Every structure is written in C-alpha cells, then in structure tokens.
C-alpha cells in the first residue's frame, strides 16, 4: 500500500520517504539515521517537525557519499544540477572531457603519420626530380674527379 508521504510519481526513485521509511531503505535504525542527519548531509528536509527524504537523493548519497551534497550546497538552490540524475551528469562530463582531449600523435613511420605529408607541395614535382638527378650527376662527377 502506498504511504501518504509518497509523492505519487510513477518513478519509484522520486518517492518521498518518512524517517522510518528512509531508515528502512538504508537498512539502519531510525536512531542511527537521526544521528547521521546533522553532520553527514543526508539529503532530507524537516517539514513541520517531521523529516522527509527523497528516495533518489538517498540513493545518490549512498552511492556518492556526502561530498556531492556538500558541493551542491555551495550552489544556489535549483541550480543546473536540479533535475539531472548524477549518472547522466557524469556521462556529460565524461563526454566533455573526451571531446577536449587531443588525440594521440601518430608515430613516425605509421601510415597515419606519413599520410599527413601527402601533397604538402603544389606544382610540378618533375622539376625537383630533374634537379635532384642533376645534383646526383654532379656528385658522381666530383667523386670521380
């Protein structure tokens, strides 16, 4: 049966839990959870003297530790993180870092490296080859002399 405190969302992780339900979800006693609340940034709010917790918030706290919530508290309420699940956020950050990282330099002698030198000069190569051939002949004559 659905608790009165539940939000009615179809997503079970959007559920709002009471202290008792939150403790059950975390598999700790209510007292243990109550002791954690002031110092460990457990994501909950007191409403009219009663504690309420987001099930998703608790799952994220369990997974990532309280550091995330400490950081989150530095930002204005409802800031960009608001509705982005952490996994999606992590994927976005990862994508951003990968897109910024430079591809590794190809090794000298690899096809990839060599093809970078393709067509770096314009114009007729025959003149250069003739010039090279002339220089070779000159060197050969000098060698004989």
């Amino acid at each position, binding site marked *: 049966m659905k608790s009165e405190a539940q939000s009615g969302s179809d997503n079970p992780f959007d559920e709002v839990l009471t202290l008792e339900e939150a403790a059950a979800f975390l598999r700790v006693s209510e007292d243990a959870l109550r002791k954690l609340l002031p110092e460990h940034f457990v994501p909950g709010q007191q409403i009219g003297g009663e504690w309420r917790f987001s099930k998703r918030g608790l799952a994220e706290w369990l997974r990532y530790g309280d550091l995330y919530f400490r950081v989150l508290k530095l930002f204005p309420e409802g800031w960009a993180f608001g509705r982005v699940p952490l996994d999606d956020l992590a994927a976005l950050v990862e994508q951003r870092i990968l897109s910024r990282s430079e591809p590794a330099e190809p090794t*000298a*002698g*690899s*096809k990839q*490296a*060599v*093809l*970078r*030198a*393709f*067509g*770096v*000069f*314009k*114009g*007729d*190569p025959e003149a*250069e*080859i003739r*010039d*090279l051939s002339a*220089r*070779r002949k000159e*060197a*050969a004559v*000098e*060698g*004989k002399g």
Partner: protein
Amino acid sequence: MTIFDTDVFTLFTHGNDKISRRIQGLPDDEVLAVTLVTQMEVLRGRFASVEKASGEEELKSAVERFRLSEQALAQFQVIYPDDAAAQHFERLRTAQGRGGWAAPTCSSRASPSPTTRFS
C-alpha cells in the same frame, strides 16, 4: 617495412595519387621509412635553394619549403646506416673510388628488413 626513395618521396609530397593509393592499400601496421640518403638529398636541395635565394620573397618561399620538407620527413621512420652498411660502403669505396652516397643504406638491427621498395 616500405622504403621510399627520394624520387618517390618527392612525388608523394607533391600529391601523387598513385603513390597515395598504394599506401592506403598497405596493412595498417606497415612501417613507412626513408633512408638517411633521402633525408640528405631532400634537405640538401632545400638548403641550396635557401642559399641561392635572390630576393626576399624567394628566400621566404625557400625557407617555407625547407620547413615543410623537414616536417614531411619527420613523418617517416628514418633508416640510418648500421655497422654492416658502413663496412659495405667502405668496401665499395675502396673498390670503386669515392662512391658517394649512392652506396646502400642497410637496415639496422633496430629496423626490420624492408618488404617493399617504392621506386
């Protein structure tokens, strides 16, 4: 390993499609190389052009071509003469007089034997 001689290197850097196609057809792990002879011939030619430049524009162009050649050569593995090549060169030089750098540049222990010569 595939070794480019100087003429082929020149054609390649001038955008010869036939050579490009042959490279594309090689296995991905093929090592492409030039010998020290090619490196010397190419840079010597470029250096001569810099020296012979008769005006500002010609000098700039020659320096740019020198730079591009250096850069293009750096994309290849360079094969330097090893002890065996040096000894062979010495034998040829003794037998034929001063033979110059037409003498072979053998692959060193560090460089695998060439499987193809682009010439």
